[in-house]
């Protein structure tokens, strides 16, 4: 049985899809903007904090890693407003959820990167009189970040795909708009094909870009000095 493809309806509603795409990028981008630095802070607290800091931070990280993102989203959208008595709109709830959720994952990426650096690097920094903060900033993190790039990319891609959950609290992201179009035109096949294609193109292009960046960094000499 042949299916009569008709992409025209999708292109007629392309504006709506683009609106959804922008919202997807907004949530992803903002969550990355907050999630990465927050992840670094959590990683440092977990690594170097005293136990009254280290333990709760560890629990927070594990909590976000071990619970379904959709449960977290519902919690911040439906439950938190009851607790604090303030309405949170779907956009803010989404950014809040995914910033925190991704920060937990980024914290583990940062931690892994930092502990992977040879302790001789810490000693060399210490031996020329650097304190811990300076050693981290000048010596350890620049090397760790370089090693973390692939894991970062992995998390960022995962994040962008997970943001499709925001449709469940009626935030009009790309997938949500695709669904709207599909329901009004009865052209699910075409609409979801195009939507998936857009996700694919963005993620694929980013991957290539990051791989290119990695290659360029590798060229500037650095491997490990032993």
């Amino acid at each position, binding site marked *: 049985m042949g299916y009569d493809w008709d992409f025209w309806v999708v292109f007629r509603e392309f504006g709506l899809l683009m609106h959804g795409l922008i919202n997807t990028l907004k949530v992803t981008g903002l969550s990355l903007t907050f999630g990465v630095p927050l992840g670094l802070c959590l990683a440092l607290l977990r690594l170097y904090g005293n136990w009254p800091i280290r333990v709760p931070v560890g629990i927070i990280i594990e909590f976000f890693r071990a619970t379904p993102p959709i449960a977290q989203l519902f919690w911040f959208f439906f439950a938190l407003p009851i607790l604090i008595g303030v309405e949170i709109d779907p956009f803010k709830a989404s950014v809040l959820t995914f910033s925190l959720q991704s920060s937990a994952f980024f914290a583990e990426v940062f931690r892994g990167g930092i502990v992977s650096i*040879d302790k*001789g*690097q810490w*000693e*060399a*920094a*210490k*031996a*020329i*009189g*650097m*304190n811990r903060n*300076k050693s981290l900033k*000048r*010596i350890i993190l*620049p*090397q760790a970040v*370089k090693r973390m790039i692939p894991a970062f990319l992995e998390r960022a891609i995962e994040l962008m795909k997970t943001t499709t959950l925001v449709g469940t609290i009626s935030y009009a992201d790309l997938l949500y708009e695709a669904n709207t179009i599909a329901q009004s035109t009865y052209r699910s096949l075409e609409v979801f094909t195009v939507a998936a294609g857009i996700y694919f193109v963005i993620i694929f292009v980013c991957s290539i870009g990051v791989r290119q960046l990695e290659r360029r960094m590798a060229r*500037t*000499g*650095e*491997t*490990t*000095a*032993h």
Partner: protein
Amino acid sequence: MTTVLSIQNIHKIFGDLEVLKGIDVNVEKSETIVILGASGSGKSTLLRCINFMEVPTSGRIVLSGKTIGKETAGKVIYNEAELNALRTRVGMVFQHFNLFPHMTVRENVMEGPRTVLKCDKDECGRRASKYLDKVGLGWKSEAYPSQLSGGQQQRVAIARALAMEPDIMLFDEATSALDPELVGEVLETIKELADEGMTMLIVTHELGFAYTVADRVLFLSEGRILEQGTPAEVLVYPKQDGTKNFLKGHGSFRLPEPKLD
């Protein structure tokens, strides 16, 4: 003579293992001291206690007349800032070089003067050029450590320590990780520093080098100084059985003298 460094009754205990059992050494200005001993005798630990890479369990470190730490009720308390300041005056060269791989050779050497000593740009540049030239690697300024041989990396590490213009240099088995053919260039560099009057404490397994470079040799055994004296006294005419056995072990691969007909 002025005493640059005074190590007084240093003990170091790891868990229930006492690695250093009371070490006393006075280091005079421009003196080169070589520390010998079997592995596990505590020689690296002693070196690492001097710049507080390891904090001594008890005892005193006095650098240029100033005692490090504050003594209250028999216990010495060290503050991080004081230790960091001390480390800027004590250079250390490691067995595994530990250059910063993400920085060029020049940046490695400038890092301490720039971020710790807060020297201005001209001064950082001057020091980088001066000390890289001293170790013969001015022409490798823009290379990354991974592009250098082990011997070159270790010479950069020496330049990095010298750039702090320290009062004293510590060498912790600086040639042990090198291929045999690269050992010479590093020892040569260290020898030049000795000739220029740098105060140095050197842990090494190169007995021939120890003999040539040292003003004084300390032989450590089980956390104590078993014997010390001039290179000839310790290496050629040792008095203690421990020293004799150690030297015997090192001599077992000496090539036979050629027979003359």
